[in-house]
Every structure is written in structure tokens, then in C-alpha cells.
């Protein structure tokens, strides 16, 4: 009996073949706008990646991601994605203007409002230094900063939204960018025809591997498994231990994925025959290790 997955979006059959990808093109080093089915007339502003080097990427994020980002020296990472220049979309909750800057608190519903600081150039008449009032939805473009453990965004642009569909587009862009840029936890493609390469889930992503990881992201949605299921399957596949990998270790490696989601994925994969339990119901191995 096929697993009746609780999520309506998940395909029942995990057959290979083209099934609902979020991207058709695989431009290496760039994330592309999702083609089709996107009716918003608003152009996506500040969403394009300009190049492959870290410094020139501007990445759509949520406030929660910025607050949770890990930090090594001056570099921030959301999962595996390096972030420096970011965009967030949220509603202004409070404002505070001083001689040299305007401080906003911007709330995008993912957590407490984020502090946004916009420097005011008192000598440049071209720069608009009108304070935007609370209740205004804005798109903030700026750099993530941390000072004395306090995170904020130093903005080079705070633009009030005129088209509220940008709220929707930003949500989708955040998911798309982080999915495309984040190194999936395997190099081999799921669903047969794998490259046979070793799975190294926790290795640091190299510059070159970004291109490869993007292809992986493409493969992820082409075999009928959801992104979560693919990630879980990849980890299980990478385990060469005879007794398999435990659910607890999956949770450890998968960070933000909740235990429930992991268990659901394991149940589905097991029902589909991709994995089987070993010493107990908490340990699993893949039915087709390609090593």
C-alpha cells in the first residue's frame, strides 16, 4: 500500500523522470527566476546574483535566517549559504531618526523585528532621507552585521513596497535561493544513474562544487522525491556502516529539519523501498548504495 503522505505536494510514486522542479534551467552560479505560473507583475529587485564570488551576491533572506546565521570572523552563513549582502521584506514596526541615521525595526513574521540602520548622507540632496512610518511594508537591501552579539542590517536601500505581491515573490525567492545555493548533502544524484562519488555530507563547499551542487538541486526534484526526502535518502545512502544510520544521527546532521519531518521522510522512503531498517526501527540503510 502506498504511503499516504500527509503533505499533498509529495508525489506518491518515486519514479525517475521529470516531476515538478522549481527550476528548469541550470545556470551554474546563478539562481534563476522560476519560469511560469508566476503572475506578479512586479520585477524582482535586488534578487539577482551578480557573480560567483561571495562579495557580489545579494541573497534574499528571512530575519530568522539572519539571526540564526553562523559566524566565522566577518563571514556569515545560513546553513551552507554564505550571506553578506541580503534583502529582506517586512513591515516597519518602529522608527528612530537621528542626525546621521534612521533606524527601523522591520518585521517579516519569522521572528522579532530586525534592526535596520540606514545612514543619512546629510550632504547629498539626492538621497531621500524621509523617514518611512510604521506600518509601511518595505524591501531592505543591505549588509548583515554583528556587533557585540547583536545582529542588524546596515541598509543601502529601504524601498517602500507599492506592489504587495513582492511579499509573495520574496518568500518564494528566499526558498529558491537557499535551496539552489545551499550544498545538498550529497553529490550523487538520487534515483539511479548516480555518479558513484563518495558522499561527504559535512565537507566544506568548494567554489567549484557550487556548480555541481546546483545540478544536484536540480536532480533533487526530478526523481519524484521531495527535497526533504532526498536529503534524508542521501544521508542514509552515505552510511557504509553495517548497522546503518540512526534517526538521531539524521536529526543531528539535518539541523533545521524537525524530527517529525525526518520520520515522515524515513517512513515514505521505507515504504517505497529506498531504505530498510536494520538492527531496530531507528536504524536504516539504503537499498541501493552505489558504492
Amino acid at each position: 500500500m502506498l504511503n499516504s503522505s500527509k503533505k499533498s505536494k509529495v508525489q506518491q510514486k518515486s519514479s525517475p523522470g521529470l516531476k515538478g522542479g522549481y527550476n528548469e534551467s541550470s545556470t551554474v552560479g546563478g539562481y534563476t527566476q522560476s519560469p511560469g505560473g508566476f503572475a506578479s507583475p512586479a520585477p524582482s529587485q535586488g534578487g539577482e546574483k551578480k557573480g560567483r564570488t561571495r562579495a557580489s551576491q545579494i541573497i534574499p533572506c528571512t530575519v530568522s535566517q539572519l539571526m540564526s546565521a553562523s559566524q566565522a570572523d566577518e563571514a556569515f552563513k545560513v546553513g551552507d549559504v554564505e550571506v553578506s549582502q541580503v534583502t529582506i521584506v517586512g513591515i516597519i514596526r518602529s522608527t528612530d531618526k537621528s542626525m546621521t541615521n534612521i533606524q527601523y525595526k522591520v518585521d517579516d513574521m519569522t521572528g522579532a523585528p530586525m534592526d535596520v540602520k540606514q545612514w543619512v548622507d546629510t550632504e547629498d540632496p539626492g538621497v531621500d532621507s524621509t523617514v518611512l512610518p510604521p506600518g509601511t511594508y518595505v524591501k531592505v537591501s543591505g549588509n548583515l552585521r554583528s556587533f557585540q552579539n547583536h545582529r542588524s542590517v546596515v541598509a543601502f536601500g529601504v524601498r517602500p513596497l507599492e506592489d504587495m505581491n513582492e511579499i509573495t515573490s520574496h518568500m518564494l525567492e528566499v526558498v529558491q535561493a537557499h535551496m539552489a545555493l545551499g550544498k545538498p548533502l550529497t553529490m550523487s544524484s538520487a534515483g539511479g544513474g548516480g555518479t558513484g562519488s563518495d558522499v561527504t555530507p559535512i565537507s566544506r563547499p568548494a567554489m567549484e562544487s557550487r556548480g555541481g551542487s546546483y545540478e544536484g538541486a536540480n536532480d533533487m526534484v526530478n526523481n519524484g522525491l521531495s527535497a526533504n526526502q532526498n536529503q534524508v535518502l542521501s544521508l542514509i545512502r552515505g552510511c557504509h556502516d553495517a548497522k546503518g544510520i540512526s534517526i538521531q544521527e539524521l536529526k543531528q546532521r539535518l539541523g533545521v529539519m524537525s524530527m517529525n519531518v525526518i520520520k515522515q521522510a524515513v517512513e515514505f522512503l521505507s515504504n517505497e523501498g529506498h531504505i530498510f531498517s536494520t538492527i531496530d526501527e531507528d536504524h536504516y540503510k539504503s537499498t541501493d548504495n552505489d558504492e
Partner: protein
Amino acid sequence: MQLNISRAILLSTEFSNGKNSKPVKMAGILDVPKPRITCSLLSQYISRPVCFVGRVEKVHPTGKTFTVADGEGKIATVELNDPLEEELSGIVEVIGMVSNKGVLMANTYNLLREDKGIPFDLELYTEALKVIHDFPQHYPFEVAASG
């Protein structure tokens, strides 16, 4: 007196997206994650703060409650602390707690402007909600401890 002050603030704003952004009663609710949900998820978020976007359907004559339709056409009831001061219509974004009866006890709300001639696509927003709920690892409604 409070009415006059709030009207004065409204009149002085040029970029105000909402005709009425009510002041926060509980400062706390704005400082926590407020997952964006639809009516079908209300029952899973009882006693939790949420953000609900929908089209205003009917406003009760007392102005203390109104119904909203989400992008799937389902209707939710919103209750306010203070009665509405003016007629509410269009797309509204409500933040509040879900009561154990599935009613959204509003803490604050704001209208999503459509005055620039660009209508808000509520159905598309609802599709986007499915995406972000499908990929919580890429759109977290929680703040993990930063490493």
C-alpha cells in the same frame, strides 16, 4: 482624544500602507515568530501566534469582529480588542493568537495597499505559503541559536 491623535498620524503619513495600523497591545507577540497560515492550518496553531492574510468578507455591526477569506476561499473569524473605527475592506494582514475555537484573536492588523492599481494576488500568496511550509529549512519561522 486617542481617536484624534491616531487620525492625525494617519493623515500625516504619505507612505502608509495600511489605513489603520493599530498599536500593539501585547508587545510580546510581535517579538516572536508568527507563522503565516491559512484557514486549514488554524486548528494546528491553537494558542499560538500567527499571521493571517485574507480578504475582508463581512464586518459585524459592532465592529468588534469580522470574517476574512483566505486564498482557498475558506473563512476565518477575527475578533478585535477595540471595535473598528472605520469600515474595513480589501486585503488585510492580521497578527494574533488562535483561540481554542479557531478564532483569530487579533493583536494588530494592517491593510495591504492596492491603491497603486496593482491588486494583491491572494491565491498566489496561498500557493507560496504551501512552498514555505514545505521547506521550513529554507524559510524558518523560528530562530535557532546562532553558531
